[in-house]
């Protein structure tokens, strides 16, 4: 028994944290005007594309985000104006039902694997080295899924002429299915040096 304990301690000391790394493909982007329902105001074109298909979510995010209550919406913004610059603040992209704003961000994925953690505990109690390796894999995968969600998110930026910004906004789906039909996204940008916002609204 004592020998087994020492073996376990040695194994844990030199155990690589995980054996595999996840790989998530980039979401293919098009020019903003190519998205159905794209809107152009003051030379700025905004297109959005909700990614509702669970298989596509699994492919690009490694998780079914709809199951977690989120809808990833791909947003593309292009500044086609000859000389104006615009500012996009991430917090100014919101979703609405009627006049009521819905939360857009929040923790889409926690980066924790409950199954992995429970399995690790069980494996530690039963001194199962193989079990620990499997649990490590699940826990590491969960962190990689979260990292990918962070990297693909739409970010605040200044759009100078001919510049483009794109990324996902993770829309928290209202629990009431009736509300989901009226859900719309508002992308607000501001012309540099002014307080005047320009709003783009889309049903999603």
């Amino acid at each position, binding site marked *: 028994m004592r020998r087994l304990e020492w073996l376990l301690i040695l194994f844990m000391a030199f155990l690589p944290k995980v054996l595999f790394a996840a790989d998530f493909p980039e979401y293919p982007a098009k020019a903003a005007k190519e998205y159905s329902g794209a809107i152009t105001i003051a030379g700025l074109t905004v297109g959005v594309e909700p990614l509702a298909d669970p298989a596509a979510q699994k492919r690009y995010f490694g998780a079914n985000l709809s199951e977690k209550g989120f809808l990833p919406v791909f947003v593309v913004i292009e500044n086609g104006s000859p000389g104006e610059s615009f500012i996009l603040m991430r917090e100014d992209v919101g979703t609405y039902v009627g006049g009521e704003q819905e939360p857009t961000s929040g923790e889409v994925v926690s980066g924790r694997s409950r199954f992995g953690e429970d399995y690790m505990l069980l494996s530690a109690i039963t001194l199962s080295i193989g079990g620990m390796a499997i649990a490590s894999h699940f826990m*590491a995968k969960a962190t990689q899924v979260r990292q990918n969600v962070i990297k693909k998110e739409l970010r605040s930026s200044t759009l100078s002429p001919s510049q483009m910004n794109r990324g996902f906004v993770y829309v928290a789906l209202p629990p009431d299915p009736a509300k989901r039909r009226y859900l719309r996204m508002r992308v607000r940008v501001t012309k540099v040096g002014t307080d005047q916002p320009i709003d783009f609204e889309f049903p999603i």
Partner: protein
Amino acid sequence: MYCRSVLCPNLVGLILLVFAGMRAPATAQSVPPKLNLKADLVLTTAFCSAEIKRGNGWTTAKERFPVGEQLCPLLAADLPSLFASMEKSDKVPAQNTTDADVILVPKIGDIGATMGRKQELVVVLEWTALDRAGRPLWVQTIEGTAHEKAGNGFSHGKHIRLLNDAAVRDALAKSEEAIRSAPGLLKLAQ
């Protein structure tokens, strides 16, 4: 015998030249000019204490990534070299109450750390430059990233520190580059 030949002095001279070249001080690197602006740098308590923690110390190693704690003093020390003058404050000044030309506000958007054989730390840092009246002049999000091996049970803590340091330094370098080339600030500095 060889040194009586014509080649000898030339050879000696060549060797001396090579050594002199090796010992000569490196030519000064071109320092980019400062932006002719008076700036306020806003480092809020929330920003300077931004961090992530994970692990329970039993089935998973306890890990802490004190990004804000490390980034704050580095920004305060390095950013003044980009501007004609810079003041530091812990909150955004009210409209038209500062004499600064530009107010720089960094915000941690997110911090993500993976587990694995090769760990990755990502620091999403959002920069906003406001004018005296509080209007945004320029906004840019940068991503500081670093990779580091996980190590083993004995060396894991050291690798976590190295990972954190590298991501913070990357965020700092990218921030400086972004500020230096920000069209809104360059235009204002003219």
